[in-house]
């Protein structure tokens, strides 16, 4: 019955608390006669505060509580409540004073109190922070609650309050004690349990010491001992035991789950033991609590408390407990509490954020092995990483900081001045052409490469217009590449392409043409008959937001030899469209790019993708439904042929996908793993051991370690042409050394946001990678002139530092490449 915390919605702890507080507040008044259960759990899982709530001795209420529990979102709190209830009752009875108040700090999750929690909850919150406060509250409550924890409601009992023996005031718990105050309807005892905070998670109800402990044990056990004052438990056995049982269970769950397992078994065990001990010696029950409670002072207090009867919480009760002020005071306390705790909660715990997502389809997420695990694999990667780690250990043993040493001496630069970049004739011509495009009368005999270049720069300058488009379309063009068609309207498109002789058209790139490419314009122009595009090999319609499945279908039926299709960012396309595409192009399609097509569900298109017999490039960036299951099934059929896989932003992927890729994709030449935060070093190992031909590797915001990347480069760095380590923040000296040693063919390197790289490291890399043409260093504020002036690589272009043009990082594609990335058309 206790709901697992796993199902609890994620909430900001701080807000939750506040909410809870307010919830409680609201409930307080609404509920009467209901015990207020406040379940407190430590925030951030550290808390072990679990106050037992003060419960009514009234069993009935206990039962109520049980039902209340179900309403709780947080199983933990439920558990608490329950347990506390059970435990409490007998004890409470015993305690007459009923001053125990258990404060439970609600955990982030648990704030769904439905039961009429009283305002005591507030006190609970407050008490989290300082024992004193808690105590206060307790005292007050005690006073006030002579049975009713609700400040407002409870008046009658006030008088009863503090009775010695009740002590447990844990009030002494200076550590945040979550105590729940429970109101008892009849009996004026609010017991207060203080739990140790900070992950001790013991419900430290100290009522006479034995109470909280009792939680784990039979309710009865804890109850009886405890002190002379304790009255015999009046709880009816049966319900009680049930509750107790439940409580036990719930408590366990509570503590276990609480902070995602922050409470160790042993803690729980400890609690149990302590409880037992407590039961054995009534008077020493307080000691039990003590052990559980982290705060030693608590224990001290407990001791003291146990043996004396505290004057109705005189010590702490400064605040007045009047019902009238209760509300105000509570709010005050909440505010104070929140103020104190806010910073603690302003803490992003990825674990809490993302939860323990169960692997889909039963694939087990492999537990990331320690370094030793990586080293024990067969394969070159493990050797490499062993070497690196040995070096690290050796270095560490000689008292170095553990960072490997890296020597690089900047050279004095007289060359700098003569390193001027002379603009090439092509560049000069291009700029003039781009400025005067309207004066161009004909593009006949101009090779496609140059047409593309001119068009590229025209689009950059926003000077692209229909005049130039007509020039491109004139005659019988073989390739048309316009990377930005946002300026084009439907009418112009139709007019221009109506008369177009597309019989020789091989490549048609018309990106960002959403406005001009609804289905009907295609029907009217390019796709006007079933074989109107006989030679079309490559088509790119990125961003065609009005293109639907029907339009796609028609296009495909007009172009039977289509080998590469890029329909990224087309939101109207659905899985059906892709399925029919796959049916038509089963034998010929080689490259499929469906980045960011959010209408497509990965698992639905999987059977269609499996049919594509010659697929070698698949790009699925941004499609969240791509999971490990999908990857492993896809790769098991096509892996042997795949040359490029783009899996950026498919955040559900884990190491098991990369393992499968490594095992089967031996011909893989390019892989993009940007933003896959669940991957660990194990993935790098798999890639290194399995994929021997990788030339383009893109990492971005992955959690890979310096040593793992360095080991990968040692094994496979010689082939790399293009490497991106953007925002892989652990990159440091090991990687730099490895780059310098191995990456002779590296042409483009992205080390943006790698702040652990020093000037020396970068200098070494740049001087050693002789083919390096482009180095991106966005966000590397640590780079100074020592590197900029000191490196001796004359060819490299540094992009992304201050005073360098930002747009250079947008790569002008190499137009000399053929229409297909990895094959020639004739194949």
């Amino acid at each position, binding site marked *: 019955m206790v709901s697992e915390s796993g199902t609890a919605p994620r909430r900001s702890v701080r807000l939750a608390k506040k909410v809870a507080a307010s919830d409680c507040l609201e409930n307080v008044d609404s509920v009467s006669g209901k015990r207020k259960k406040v379940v407190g759990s430590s925030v951030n899982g550290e808390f072990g505060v679990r106050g037992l709530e003060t419960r009514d001795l009234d069993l009935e209420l206990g039962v109520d509580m049980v039902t209340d529990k179900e309403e709780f979102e947080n199983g933990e709190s439920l558990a608490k409540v329950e347990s506390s209830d059970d435990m409490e009752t007998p004890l409470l009875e015993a305690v007459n004073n009923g001053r125990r108040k258990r404060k439970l700090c609600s955990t982030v999750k648990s704030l769904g109190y439905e039961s009429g929690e009283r305002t005591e909850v507030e006190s609970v919150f407050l008490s989290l922070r300082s024992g004193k406060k808690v105590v206060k509250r307790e005292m007050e409550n005690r006073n006030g609650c002579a049975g009713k924890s609700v400040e407002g409601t409870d008046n009658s009992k006030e008088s009863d309050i503090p009775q010695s023996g009740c002590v447990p005031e844990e009030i002494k718990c200076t550590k945040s004690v979550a105590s729940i105050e429970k109101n008892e309807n009849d009996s004026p005892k609010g017991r207060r349990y203080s739990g140790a905070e900070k992950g001790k998670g013991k419900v430290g109800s100290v009522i006479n010491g034995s109470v909280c402990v009792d939680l784990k044990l039979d309710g009865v056990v804890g109850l009886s001992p405890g002190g002379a004052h304790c009255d015999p438990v009046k709880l009816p056995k049966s319900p009680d035991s049930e509750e107790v049982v439940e409580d036990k269970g719930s408590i366990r769950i509570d503590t276990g789950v609480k902070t995602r397992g922050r409470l160790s078994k042993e803690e729980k065990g400890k609690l149990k033991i302590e409880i037992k001990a407590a039961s054995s010696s009534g008077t020493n029950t307080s000691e039990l609590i003590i052990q559980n409670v982290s705060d030693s002072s608590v224990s001290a207090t407990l001791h003291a408390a146990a043996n004396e009867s505290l004057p109705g919480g005189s010590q702490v009760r400064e605040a007045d407990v009047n019902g009238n002020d209760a509300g105000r005071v509570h709010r005050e306390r909440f505010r104070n509490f929140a103020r104190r705790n806010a910073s603690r909660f302003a803490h992003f715990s990825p674990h809490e954020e993302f939860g323990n997502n169960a692997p889909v389809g039963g694939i087990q997420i492999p537990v990331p092995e320690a370094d030793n695990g990586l080293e024990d694999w067969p394969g070159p990667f493990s050797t490499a990483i062993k070497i690196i780690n040995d070096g690290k250990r050796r270095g560490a043993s000689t008292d170095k900081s553990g960072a490997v040493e890296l020597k690089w001496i900047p050279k004095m630069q007289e060359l700098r*001045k*003569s390193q*001027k970049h002379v603009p090439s*004739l*092509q560049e*000069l*011509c291009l700029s003039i052409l781009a400025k005067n495009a309207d004066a161009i009368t004909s593009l006949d005999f101009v090779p496609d490469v140059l047409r593309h270049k001119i068009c590229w720069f025209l689009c950059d300058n926003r000077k692209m217009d229909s005049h130039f488009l007509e020039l491109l379309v004139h005659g019988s063009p073989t390739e048309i590449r316009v990377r930005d068609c946002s300026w084009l309207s439907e009418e112009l498109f139709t007019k221009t392409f109506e008369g177009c002789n597309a019989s020789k058209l091989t490549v048609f790139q018309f990106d960002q043409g959403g406005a001009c490419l609804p289905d009907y314009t295609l029907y009217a122009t390019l796709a006007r008959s079933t074989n109107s595009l006989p030679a079309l090999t490559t088509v790119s319609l990125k961003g065609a937001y009005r293109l639907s499945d029907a339009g796609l279908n028609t296009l495909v039926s007009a172009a039977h030899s289509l080998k590469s299709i890029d329909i990224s960012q087309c939101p109207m396309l659905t899985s059906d469209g892709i399925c029919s595409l796959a049916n038509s192009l089963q034998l010929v399609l080689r490259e499929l790019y469906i980045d960011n097509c959010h209408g497509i569900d990965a698992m639905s298109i999987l059977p269609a993708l499996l049919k594509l017999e010659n697929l070698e490039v698949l790009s699925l960036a941004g499609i969240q439904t791509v999971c490990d299951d999908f990857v492993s099934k896809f790769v098991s059929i096509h892996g042997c042929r795949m040359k490029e896989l783009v899996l950026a932003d498919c955040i559900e992927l884990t190491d098991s996908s990369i393992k499968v890729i490594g095992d089967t994709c031996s011909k893989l030449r390019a892989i993009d793993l940007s933003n896959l935060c669940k991957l660990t070093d194990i993935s790098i190992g798999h890639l290194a051991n399995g994929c021997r031909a990788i030339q383009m590797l893109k990492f971005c915001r992955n959690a890979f370690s310096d040593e793992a990347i360095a080991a990968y480069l040692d094994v496979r760095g010689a082939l790399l042409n293009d490497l991106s380590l953007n925002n892989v923040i652990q990159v440091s000296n090991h990687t730099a050394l490895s780059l310098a040693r191995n990456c002779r063919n590296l042409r483009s390197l992205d080390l943006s946001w790698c702040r652990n790289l020093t000037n020396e490291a970068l200098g070494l890399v740049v001087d050693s990678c002789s083919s390096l043409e482009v180095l991106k260093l966005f966000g590397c504020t640590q780079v100074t002139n020592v590197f900029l002036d000191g490196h001796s690589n004359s060819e490299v272009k540094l992009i992304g530092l201050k005073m360098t043009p930002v747009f250079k990082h947008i790569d002008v594609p190499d137009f000399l490449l053929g229409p297909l990335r990895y094959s020639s058309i004739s194949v």
Partner: protein
Amino acid sequence: MKKEDTVKLISAEGFEFVIDKKAAMVSQTIRNMLTSPGSFAETEHGEVTFPEISTTILEKICQYFYWSLQYASGKETEFHIEPELTLELMMAANYLHT
């Protein structure tokens, strides 16, 4: 200009342009032709023919070579190109890898 330091570039119409070797080396294509091991006829005679490049364009290209050397040595001026030549010039420059 000594003979050993010069190369002759011949246009489609047969015009011959004699320029310094150093200037001609600005073009990657010409540099490869003249310096590659193996015996191109060009290497031996120091002559390169360009049947697709017209005279006006070839002349402009030679001017570019000298301008480029000048620029690299510090004197940065502007290289003016007549717009009507631009397209052809660009094609020639593409071919010559300059």
